[in-house]
């Protein structure tokens, strides 16, 4: 089956991203396809490359990055939600005249149309969050 995952909550504060990650891993192991992972609301914060969680804890962003690399996942961060929360990639930082960027290269930023299109293309769209 082909899945699109929607993640609406930030890392550590909420388990949504962890659950989505575990789901994605299990689904891929079973031979299913993840069409897209879309990060929205505070979920965009999962894409920060600057987080430093304690060494004995999981690193949520790196977990996603590794899974994304292994399976060539399309991991999309909503640009409107990201800008609102100070999440920028290098291109966007340049365009907006900001002096830093923080989005991990495993993720790409794009518009909400990618979420709707993900819902159209997938057999199931699963939401992780409140």
């Amino acid at each position, binding site marked *: 089956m082909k899945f699109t995952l929607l993640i609406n909550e930030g890392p550590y504060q909420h388990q949504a991203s962890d659950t989505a990650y575990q789901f994605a891993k299990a689904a891929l192991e079973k031979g299913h396809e993840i069409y897209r992972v879309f990060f929205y609301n505070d979920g965009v914060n999962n894409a920060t490359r600057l987080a430093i969680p304690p060494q004995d804890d999981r690193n949520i962003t790196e977990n996603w990055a590794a899974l994304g690399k292994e399976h060539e996942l399309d991991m999309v961060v909503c640009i409107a939600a990201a800008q609102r929360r100070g999440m920028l990639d290098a291109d966007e930082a340049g365009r907006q005249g900001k002096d830093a960027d923080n989005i991990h290269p495993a993720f790409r930023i794009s*518009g909400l149309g990618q979420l*709707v299109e993900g819902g159209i293309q997938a057999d199931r769209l699963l939401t992780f969050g409140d």
Partner: protein
Amino acid sequence: MSESIKKFMFVNTKAPYGTVYALESLEVVLISAAFDQDVSLVFCDDGVFQISNNQNTEASGMKNFSNAYKALGDYDINKLYVEKESLEERGLTLDNIMDLTYEDEDWAEKPSIKLVTRAELADLMDEQDVVISS
């Protein structure tokens, strides 16, 4: 844009202010209009307050985005289901809800708001391809 038309239902369960969910859900709804899908909205639980009349955010400093719901009809989004029990549980009636309308193919103004019971809503949800709730 796409060969397949799916039924998308956006379920709004939270108050318009206090968290960002209502505002950011509306942003997805407006984008979805560009994809020529069969889109409907649900307002239940505290979500009914999202389309309540006479919202005034002046004292709280929040952005009042309630006027954006009035534009939905222009985007051909005209199935707005309001759950009857949610209104009743909060001491509200349809008189407290914005008069949201759309123009049909003959330019006649029609109401977009449809009052449904919890049981009817369950049936409607069952018919959907994609349900996104927040």
